[in-house]
Structure formats: structure tokens, C-alpha cells
């Protein structure tokens, strides 16, 4: 019964969403407040109904109700509770319901916290947002209903792919979807602004917190996904340029561009139609990501719900949402006249450069991901686009971006002082060049890329710190003054500093762990030992282990740096999941936050022993720490009081264009 109630609640949510599309928009067009005010209760109601529906499905997973088809297909009674819950979104139907739940959470949040928005604008935003809701709820009900029953109910479920039974992947999709779906808010704000024909600094401030929220979640989601790949897939890689990884990376790149261009709209009242375009593009890329994963047009290790019929429906949705918004854009965007002037050497000039490079990077990833599909569609040759392509195109694009990243924040608005900046960046420049040359000499000239990477990381980090020091006038006056300034620094400033420092940290982790890692691949038996990167790895013993739905063996390795006692004992294991008859190798990692010691036990060998892979990854932990620091920077910026939703008040537009919101 509960499941039927959930199904019914979803149908009701569709009705409410339809009301939310039509009535508020009509009200906004005819100027009738009563009709506009339908939007908020409708958005809340839609959220409550979808939440009921989600709870009903969750209940079926928790209680292992195998009379529900998706539960029977994807769950199993012996699965640990955490994976029973995450099993809900570990499959196509459930993950789409999670998608819609998050969509309605954002809608409800605007209804609750959007009191500062003008009523007509808010009505339009919520109406546009509900259009997306209608599309996706219909998609679920018509092609991917998770509430279907199966009769007779099987005695037990078919279980879940063991690879997915991992905490990292259990919480990866919710974060990713919080990001993907969160950009629907920026999209709705952009479409509403196009409908009104007006974009101004107040608009930029309203849209910023929602974009930031989505960006933080997506950053965290990508970080989790990458870390999962690192420790679950067992080959020590953290990014494979897989189409599904790219699908989450593209909205991240364009979302990052959007965050930066919205600042220009806010401070300088220019770059408006570009910012609107980025808002549309970012959500479009999120939808394309969904399409790529769901339709199976790109065969990928992740494409677990390959189904052309669903693909056709999503394509239709894509056509309506993206196509419709781009038609509106073509009609309305040309009238968004900028009022601010801008000079190439200025903060806004640097932000434009940032946007140009990030947009090009997005295009690069997009081309790389979709080009094989494109050639296939025109009956061209079959090609593969893998990591070497991105190394040749994407990576070089990042270099000028990172170089500019240290200098940009030092520039002032309107007209920057290049010689002044150069003087201030002398020390960071000298130090990072010294680091680049020094590390390159230390490494004996090999992996030049790593030296360049760490030099750039130092440049970005020191440049960011130089900017912070300048803002608080470090060593330029009494220290108490510096402290006072530190306290008075706006949260948005802190956010930028923290996020940029995070980029530097991630960059250092990526390049150093790639360039200077060491590996040992050999057959080992208990009692054997091997030296990798100066550390002695001793294979102590093996022991049987088991879990609720698997049995296996656990190996024990002691790692020492030559001293009397090992500095760590690692226990990688091999698990055989009885249901799927699948064996997984579980990695063991020791970290001191500066390097990872990574070991994984592979296939047993006919002559005895196992293939043991040992890696030493210097600075690898920084990859994910940096990502988390970026996300934290976003969160700090989000807490800025000036950006609280509704706080800014739209100012009258002055013909001279001098209406910039106070900086």
C-alpha cells in the first residue's frame, strides 16, 4: 500500500507542478498578485509530495520489499543497511526520483527564502522551475516508474553490483545531483530574466547564492567520485577522462565560469547576455550529462541504464528545455544593453579572460566526449578520444588560466595598474620559478610536467596569499590594524582566497602524484619483501575474512622506512561476493597527508603467491583536500551576509549607467 501511496503522491506532484507552471506565469504576465502568490505554496506542496513518494520507495528498500520490481532487481536482504539505502539511487529509476526530489528541494528553498525577490520575478522563476519538474516527473511516470510491482514477489532480490557497495559511491550521486540539479535554479533565474527583459546587478546577486550552492555540491561530488575511482578501481588512477566523468566535469567548468562572470554583472553591470548564456549552458550541460549517462549513447563503464526509449524521451526533454531557452535567448538577449565600460587591464578584464579560457576548456571536453558520437552519426570513421587528447588540448589551456589566476584578484575594477601588479607579484614569481627549477633539478630533468605543475601551484598559492596580504595590509602598518582588517574582510573575499588556494593544492597533488609516483608490481608470497620508493614492504601473512554478503582473504603488509618498527601495517583484501560470484580487490591505503602508500592484492598465481601492486603517490591526498578546500571556499562565500537571498534590493536603473551596486 505504501508503494501505491508513493506512486499516487508522484502523480499528484505532477498536477501541482502543472499548476505551478501555468498560474504564476499568467499572474506575472497580467500583473495579478493573487495568481503570482500561488507559486510558493505550490513549490512547497510539490516538494512535500515528491518527498512522500521518495520516502515510500526508501521504505521499500529498507524493508526489502521484493514485490517492488526495482527493489527486487537491485537490492538483496543480506546487503548492509547503508547499501540498501544507497541502492535506491544505484539504479536508473530510483536515481531519477532522487533527481526530482532535489529539484523540488531547490524549488521549495526559493519559495521559503525568496521573500526579497520581486513578486513577479519570483513567480516567473518558480514557474520556469516547475516546467523542468513537469518534464522529469513525466519522464519517471512514463518511462522509468520505480513503483511497479512484480507478482509473484521473488523470495530475494538480485543484489547490487559489488563495485557500487562502497561508502564513497553511496554518497557520490546525491552530491552530484545537488550540483547538477542546483544549476536548474540559475537556469530558472536566467529564463525569468529573459522573460522580463532585464538583467542588472541585483539579478546577479540573487542568482549567485544558488549558483554557489550548486557549484559547492558539484565540487564535492566530483571529489568523492574521483576518490572512489582511486581506491575502489584499484589501479591508482583518479581521473580517466571517461565520458561519465566528463559529463560532471563540463557543468563544473561552465558553472565556474558562471560564478566569475556573475561577479562582473554585479560589480560592473556588463557581460550580461554572456552570463545569461552561461547560466543556460551550465544547466544544459547538466541535462546533457544526464542524457549521456541515461541513454547509453556513449558506452561507458558507468552507463548502467542504457535504454534508447528513455534516451529518446530525455532527448525530447532536452530539446524542449534547452532549445526553448535558447530560442528565448536569441530573441531577448540582444536587448540586454551593458552600461558599464571595461578596459582590458582590469579586474573585469581578467574575469573575461577567465571566462574565455574556461569556456574553451568546456568546449574541449565537450568535443572530446561527443566527437566519436558525432562521427558515428555522420557515418564517419570510428575513433576513440582518451586521456592523450586531453593532455594535448585541455592541459595547455589551463596554464594561462592558472597564470592569470594569481594576478586577476590583484587588479582593481575599471582600470588595473599592470606595473604595480608586476611589482607586487615579484616575490611569488621568483619563488615559484625557483621551485620549478629546483624540483626539476632534483628530479634530474624527468617529468618536466610535474615541475611546471608544482611551480604553477606555488604561483597560484603565493599570488593568492599576496592578494590577501595586500587586503589586510600585512607589514604595512601596525599588526593590530592587519588583524582588524582580517576580521573585517568580507566572507566573499575569504571564499575566493580559500577556493583559489584549494586550486593550488589540488594542482600540486595532481602533478606531483602523477610525475613522481613510484610503483612495484610483482608476485609475492607471505614472507616476501620488496622496496618501493625507499620503503620496505613486507608481506606478513594472509587470513580469511567475511562480511554479510561476501567472503574472502585479507593480506597483511608491514611497511617500514628501514627503522626497527614498521610505520604502518596495511591490510588489503580480496572479497568474493557470493551472489554475483564476483571477486573484488579492496585496496589498503596509508596516508600521512603528504603521500599515500597504496597496496592491492591481485590474482593468485598458479606457481603460488599473488600479483601485488604497490604504489607510492606523493602529494596524492592533496588532490582531494584541494577539492574540499575549494568547496569550503564556496561555502564561506555563500555565508556572506551580502549574498543572503533577498538581502539585495534592486535599485532603479539610471540612464547614465552609474547604478552599480556598492562594491
Amino acid at each position, binding site marked *: 500500500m505504501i508503494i501505491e501511496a508513493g506512486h499516487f503522491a508522484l502523480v499528484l506532484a505532477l498536477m501541482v507542478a502543472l499548476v505551478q507552471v501555468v498560474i504564476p506565469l499568467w499572474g506575472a504576465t497580467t500583473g495579478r498578485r493573487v495568481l503570482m502568490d500561488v507559486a510558493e505554496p505550490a513549490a512547497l506542496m510539490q516538494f512535500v509530495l515528491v518527498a512522500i513518494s521518495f520516502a515510500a520507495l526508501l521504505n521499500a528498500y529498507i524493508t526489502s520489499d521484493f514485490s517492488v520490481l526495482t527493489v527486487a532487481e537491485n537490492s538483496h536482504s543480506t546487503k548492509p543497511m547503508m547499501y540498501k539505502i544507497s541502492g535506491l539511487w544505484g539504479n536508473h529509476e530510483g536515481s531519477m526520483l532522487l533527481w526530482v526530489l532535489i529539484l523540488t528541494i531547490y524549488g521549495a528553498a526559493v519559495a521559503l527564502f525568496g521573500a526579497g525577490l520581486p513578486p513577479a520575478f519570483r513567480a516567473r522563476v518558480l514557474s520556469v522551475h516547475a516546467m523542468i519538474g513537469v518534464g522529469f516527473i513525466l519522464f519517471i511516470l512514463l518511462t522509468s516508474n520505480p513503483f511497479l510491482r512484480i507478482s509473484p514477489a521473488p523470495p530475494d532480490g538480485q543484489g547490487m553490483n559489488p*563495485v557500487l557497495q562502497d561508502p564513497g559511491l553511496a554518497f557520490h550521486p546525491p552530491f552530484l545531483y545537488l550540483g547538477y540539479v542546483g544549476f536548474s535554479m540559475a537556469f530558472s533565474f536566467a529564463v525569468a530574466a529573459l522573460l522580463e527583459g532585464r538583467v542588472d546587478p541585483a539579478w546577479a546577486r540573487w542568482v549567485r547564492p544558488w549558483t554557489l550552492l550548486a557549484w559547492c555540491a558539484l565540487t564535492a561530488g566530483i571529489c568523492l567520485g574521483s576518490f572512489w575511482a582511486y581506491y575502489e578501481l584499484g*589501479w591508482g*588512477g583518479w581521473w580517466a577522462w571517461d565520458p561519465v566523468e566528463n559529463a560532471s566535469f563540463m557543468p563544473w567548468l561552465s558553472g565556474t565560469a558562471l560564478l566569475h562572470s556573475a561577479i562582473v554583472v554585479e560589480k560592473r553591470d556588463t557581460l550580461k547576455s554572456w552570463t545569461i548564456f552561461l547560466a543556460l549552458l551550465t544547466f544544459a550541460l547538466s541535462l546533457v550529462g544526464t542524457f549521456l549517462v541515461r541513454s547509453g549513447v556513449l558506452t561507458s563503464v558507468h552507463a548502467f541504464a542504457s535504454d534508447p526509449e528513455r534516451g529518446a524521451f530525455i532527448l525530447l526533454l532536452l530539446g524542449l528545455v534547452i532549445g526553448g531557452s535558447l530560442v528565448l535567448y536569441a530573441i531577448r538577449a540582444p536587448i540586454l544593453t551593458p552600461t558599464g565600460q571595461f578596459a582590458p587591464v582590469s579586474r573585469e578584464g581578467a574575469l573575461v579572460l577567465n571566462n574565455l579560457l574556461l569556456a574553451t576548456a568546456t568546449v574541449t571536453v565537450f568535443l572530446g566526449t561527443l566527437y566519436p558520437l558525432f562521427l558515428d552519426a555522420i557515418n564517419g570513421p570510428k575513433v576513440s578520444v582518451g586521456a592523450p587528447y586531453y593532455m594535448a588540448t585541455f592541459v595547455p589551456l589551463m596554464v594561462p588560466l592558472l597564470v592569470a589566476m594569481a594576478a586577476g584578484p590583484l587588479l582593481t575594477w575599471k582600470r588595473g595598474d599592470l606595473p604595480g601588479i608586476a611589482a607586487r607579484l615579484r616575490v611569488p614569481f621568483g619563488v615559484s620559478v625557483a621551485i620549478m627549477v629546483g624540483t626539476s633539478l632534483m628530479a634530474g630533468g624527468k617529468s618536466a610536467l610535474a615541475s611546471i605543475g608544482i611551480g604553477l601551484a606555488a604561483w597560484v598559492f603565493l599570488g593568492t596569499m599576496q592578494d590577501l596580504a595586500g587586503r589586510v595590509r600585512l607589514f604595512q602598518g601596525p599588526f593590530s590594524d592587519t588583524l582588524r582588517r582580517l576580521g573585517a574582510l568580507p566572507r566573499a573575499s575569504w571564499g575566493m582566497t580559500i577556493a583559489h588556494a584549494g586550486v593550488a593544492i589540488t594542482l600540486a597533488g595532481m602533478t606531483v602524484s602523477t610525475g613522481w609516483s613510484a610503483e612495484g608490481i610483482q608476485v609475492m608470497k607471505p614472507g616476501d619483501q620488496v622496496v618501493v620508493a625507499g620503503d620496505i614492504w613486507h608481506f606478513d601473512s594472509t587470513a580469511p575474512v567475511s562480511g554479510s554478503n561476501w567472503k574472502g582473504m585479507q593480506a597483511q603488509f608491514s611497511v617500514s622506512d628501514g627503522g626497527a618498527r614498521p610505520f604502518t601495517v596495511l591490510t588489503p583484501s580480496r572479497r568474493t561476493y557470493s551472489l554475483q560470484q564476483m571477486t573484488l580487490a579492496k585496496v589498503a591505503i596509508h596516508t600521512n597527508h603528504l603521500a599515500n602508500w597504496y597496496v592491492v592484492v591481485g590474482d593468485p598465481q598458479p606457481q603460488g603467491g599473488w600479483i601485488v601492486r604497490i604504489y607510492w603517490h606523493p602529494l596524492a591526498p592533496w588532490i582531494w583536500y584541494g577539492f574540499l578546500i575549494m568547496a569550503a571556499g564556496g561555502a564561506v562565500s555563500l555565508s556572506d551576509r551580502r549574498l543572503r537571498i533577498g538581502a539585495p534590493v534592486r535599485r532603479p536603473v539610471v540612464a547614465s549607467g552609474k547604478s552599480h551596486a556598492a562594491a
Partner: protein
Amino acid sequence: MRRFRLRPVALLALLFVTAAPAWAVNPDERLSDPGLEARARALSKELRCMVCQNESIDDSNADLAHDLRVIVRQRLTAGDSDQQVLTYMRARYGDFVLLKPPVDSATWVLWFGPFAVLLLGGVVIGLMTRYRREPPPPAPLSEDEARQLQTLLKPEPEPS
């Protein structure tokens, strides 16, 4: 484990499964000459594992990937250049085997697209800044306006 072909849906499931115990090079494959081995590793990263759809043969545990890694090493030991090894693979498996697609008429957009976008974007930005730096000259005053201006500019008589 041998890999065999399944129907597409099952194939996808299999792909997911085979992605899991992804093993790189096995100890018995490696060459004793570190220079050759390094070249073999680098080449392996540029060759696609045909049965895994998204991994290089360096990352893959598939049987075929193992065979191809062995062939790469045999060719290198026999004195082939890196390019000759790639040509050898391409002759058998087509462009699909190369993770870095060759630059030809079919891939111009792929290879030069990003730089075209960068260039185009740069030009547009350049034009926009130029346009904004030189606002259009004000329209000439109408007779009416000129008369008004004259009146305004005429020094007002000092109040006395």
C-alpha cells in the same frame, strides 16, 4: 578469466564488472630494459583496450589487452619505433585503437575546434572592448536644441 562477447545489455553489465579488478601490467610481461619498458608503458597508455570501451591497454585486465601489451613489447624489442608500433596496431584495429585520434580531415574539428573557439572568443572580446572604448559620436544638435544651448550658455546677468 576469459572474456567473451555478450549481447549489448549484458555487455554493459559486463563492462561495469570488468572495470572493477582493473589490473595494469603483470610482472611477467615486463621488459628488463628500463628504457624499452618505459616506452612500452607510454605506448600502452595511448592504445585503447578494445573490449573495455574506455580504458587503455595499460589499465586493463582484459585478456586481449594483455596480448596487445605483450605485442607492444615484442615489437619494441625487435627494434620498432614508437610510430611503427602504433601503425602496426592501427593496421589491425583502425583509428579506434588510438586514444589520441590521428589528425586528418575527419578530426579537424576535434583537434582545431578548441583553438578556433579560443581565437574567435579573443577576437569577439577584442571587438567588444574596442567598441566600448569608442562610444559613437553624439548626434548633431537640432536647431531647437542649439538655440536652447545658446540660451543656457549666455552668461546670465549678474543679479544686482
